[in-house]
């Protein structure tokens, strides 16, 4: 019963963060604002959902694979956001320099 309550709380929090990230992706005015809205909420949403699956499964080989996926997502999402922001900034600067 305690396990079910913990898993349901983690799943509802994960759904909330995914919803917030998607609303930010739709409503924000700029590409950088959209990155700011989506990256943090997406990292936390994926982390909480995979953590709920780890608790549901117990200690197993599948659970270790889930933890590996979680570590990979936590490393690569901020890196991808950094590279996307750099690409958007440099592209915008090149376009401004071309117009002047």
């Amino acid at each position, binding site marked *: 019963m305690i396990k079910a309550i913990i*898993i349901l709380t983690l*799943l509802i929090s994960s759904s909330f963060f995914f919803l917030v990230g998607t609303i930010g992706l739709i409503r924000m005015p700029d590409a950088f604002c959209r990155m700011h809205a989506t990256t943090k909420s997406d990292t936390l949403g994926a982390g909480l959902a995979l953590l709920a699956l780890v608790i549901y499964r117990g200690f197993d080989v599948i659970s270790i694979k889930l933890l590996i996926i979680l570590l990979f997502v936590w490393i690569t999402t901020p890196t991808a956001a950094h*590279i996307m922001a*750099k690409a958007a900034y440099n592209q915008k600067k090149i376009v401004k320099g071309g117009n002047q």
Partner: protein
Amino acid sequence: MILNALIVMSIFLGLLFFFCLYRAYIGPEAADRVVSINIISTKVTVMIALISIITGQDAFMDVALIYAMMGFITTICVSKYIEKGKLF
């Protein structure tokens, strides 16, 4: 009860894909489309893990791991193409 909650969560993620695809369709710049595709890739990874737990097929977890790597490499390559105009 937990299994039903996992099924509802996968249906919820499947509904959220359409809003991300809307942003990828109307995005004014290329960077918006890259952001949207990166978010869709993370959501698909979580959804494959959920489906692997729901159906009991343990081999799907490897698919989720490979899909996370593919989404990261796609984002890196498209960002470098946007920034420089060429890949290498």
